[in-house]
């Protein structure tokens, strides 16, 4: 078993000139149920160790598991949202293995009878032409129910009770939390866009699960985790979807475990393509093995070889009776499905009148929900987009977080953004002042009205002050004034700037312009 960190890699383009990648993605999702899959223990994240355990999830003799109805319901809703068939009868199975993260010596899972199977998810990637998007259909093999494992903490001899021994300390709070494992069929035909397709799939799946409200899908907390299978086969031509290409037998695959961010999914596919290609072109063969992803360096290293030691001896779980979802119930659950995210995005883009480019920026910033709520609170779609993608998005980016999380942290709400915009529309603030108010809100100075009051930001409504400033500026600039009188209306810009300066920014530039032109008879 090698654990070298310096595996040779081939350049990506060079690899793709010779090989066709085939991927398989396995995603584990922790459900957001209140209790575990087979017992009534709570599932609160971050609880003190071993405070959410009972005889069932500790695997104590004589304990009898009972299925969480909500877990089955969530599994069926996920299956339906992935366009799967729902089994009319299926069983749980014991996956036997000897490792201390499961105190029972087996994980309760499903084997050849998954609750959902044969589905698909259409994902969008930017078109190669740069205009619009193209759709890649990810075929879903199955989605099945299982349970999460405990968490191990590895400690060295110095803290152990036996001199020189090394221990693992295990917390079983997570053991038994419901998991849904979603497995794709081999994804072929993506060609050189395989890394993008992988990322787009996991992203679309995350959106879908969030819309279903079945999981908090936080990849950084491990409530959504991805394993990436990859193999290469010789290229049969330039079209990765050609019959000739599809007829080429698949190569040996590797499985990279626990790839826990969207960027890493893309990176892991890309790295394994380059590594496999280097092995194959140098006359070597790929070892079927598990590999570890290193987020920091962006490479994978060898884990354990897939060998006959992975003989899970699956058999039907005798302590749990079969699950046989009633067809009427399944249809009832189908009726609760939310609008598919891709369809929803298309609808909102139409309603908001955004261009493709504007919509792409909004999607990249993760601002769809925020804008939707801001519009509902009374702002126009263009104003909502402008404010959210301005300073808040910039600051979120600087802090390497997403916009929703950032807004949550600083307490900026859609109704505040709508309030800010309404102050502009009402003529209380101009654009520049509104930006200052927004910065004040982000700095924790309070809501928009509060910040504007405290900072004394208010457009001067009294026209006499503005009039005075306009007259002064005209008197100071007889040359420019003469040009404007002569019809050079664009010269007014220079005067407006000076008026705004006179007014210390507290004036409506549009109004200043009107007044200048009126006074010089050019209106």
């Amino acid at each position, binding site marked *: 078993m090698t654990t070298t960190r310096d595996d040779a890699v081939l350049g990506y383009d060079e690899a793709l000139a010779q090989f066709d990648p085939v991927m398989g993605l396995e995603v584990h999702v922790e459900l957001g149920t209140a209790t575990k899959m087979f017992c009534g223990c709570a599932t609160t994240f971050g609880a*003190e160790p071993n405070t959410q355990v009972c005889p069932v999830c500790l695997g104590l003799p004589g304990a009898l598991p009972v299925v969480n109805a909500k*877990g089955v319901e969530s599994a069926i809703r996920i299956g339906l949202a992935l366009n799967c068939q729902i089994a009319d009868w299926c069983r749980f199975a014991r996956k036997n293995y000897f490792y201390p993260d499961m105190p029972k010596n087996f994980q309760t899972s499903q084997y050849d009878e998954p609750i959902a199977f044969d589905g698909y998810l259409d994902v969008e990637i930017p078109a190669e032409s740069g205009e619009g998007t193209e759709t890649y259909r990810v075929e879903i093999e199955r989605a099945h129910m299982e349970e999460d494992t405990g968490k191990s903490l590895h400690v060295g001899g110095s803290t152990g009770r036996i001199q020189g021994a090394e221990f693992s300390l295990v917390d*079983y709070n997570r053991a038994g939390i419901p998991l849904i494992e979603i497995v794709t069929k081999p994804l072929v035909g993506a060609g050189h866009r395989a890394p993008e397709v992988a990322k787009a799939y996991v992203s679309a799946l995350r959106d879908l699960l969030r819309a279903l409200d079945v999981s908090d899908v936080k990849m950084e907390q491990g409530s959504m985790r991805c394993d990436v299978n990859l193999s290469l086969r010789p290229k049969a031509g330039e079209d990765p979807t050609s019959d000739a290409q599809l007829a080429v037998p698949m190569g040996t695959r590797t499985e990279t475990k626990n790839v826990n961010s969207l960027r890493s999914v893309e990176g892991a596919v890309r790295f394994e393509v380059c590594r496999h290609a280097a092995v194959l072109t140098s006359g070597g063969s790929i070892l079927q093995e598990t590999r570890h992803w290193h987020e920091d360096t962006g490479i994978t290293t060898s884990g354990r070889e897939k060998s006959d030691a992975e003989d899970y001896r699956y058999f039907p779980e005798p302590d749990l009776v079969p699950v046989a979802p009633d067809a009427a119930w399944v249809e009832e659950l189908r009726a609760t499905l939310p609008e598919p995210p891709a369809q929803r995005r298309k609808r909102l883009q139409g309603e908001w009148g955004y261009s493709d480019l504007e919509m792409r920026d909004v999607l990249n910033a993760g601002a769809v929900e925020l804008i939707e709520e801001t519009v509902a609170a009374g702002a126009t779609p263009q104003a909502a987009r402008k404010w959210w993608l301005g300073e808040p998005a910039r600051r979120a980016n600087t802090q390497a977080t997403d916009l929703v999380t950032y807004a949550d942290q600083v307490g900026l709400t859609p109704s505040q953004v709508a309030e800010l915009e309404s102050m502009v529309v009402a003529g209380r603030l101009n654009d520049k002042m509104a930006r200052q108010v927004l910065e004040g809100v982000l700095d924790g100075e309070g809501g928009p009205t509060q910040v504007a009051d405290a900072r004394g930001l208010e457009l001067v409504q009294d026209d006499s002050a503005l009039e005075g400033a306009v007259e002064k500026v005209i008197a100071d600039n007889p040359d420019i004034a003469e040009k404007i009188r002569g019809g050079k209306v664009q010269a007014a810009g220079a005067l407006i700037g000076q008026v705004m300066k006179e007014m210390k920014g507290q004036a409506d530039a549009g109004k200043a312009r009107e007044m200048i032109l009126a006074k010089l008879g050019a209106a």
Partner: protein
Amino acid sequence: MGPRRAHRLARMPDLSRDDVAHLASLARIDLEPQELDRLVGELDQVLGAVAQVQEAPIEDVEPMSHPMPLVNVTRPDEVRPSLTPEQALAGAPLAEEQRFSVPRILDEE
């Protein structure tokens, strides 16, 4: 999903020394070479005895995983009290930092 398949084994082949070594490694049991030799013979005899079951006429019998024809036994998603950590750890041979202390398995995680 294919039809539920009946798992009927043909006459069990004789157990090899490699089979026993494989089972021992799965069960994390260290066996000496002479123990392996002895167990191959003993386990083969046991399998022979069990193999008699395969002579039962089961051509028309569906495989069964549960004796009762029950389905959909579920519970509502409501939290019930857990054990205290003290209770949970009471049977552990070793515990530390409110966690179960187990021998470390190297090269994993």
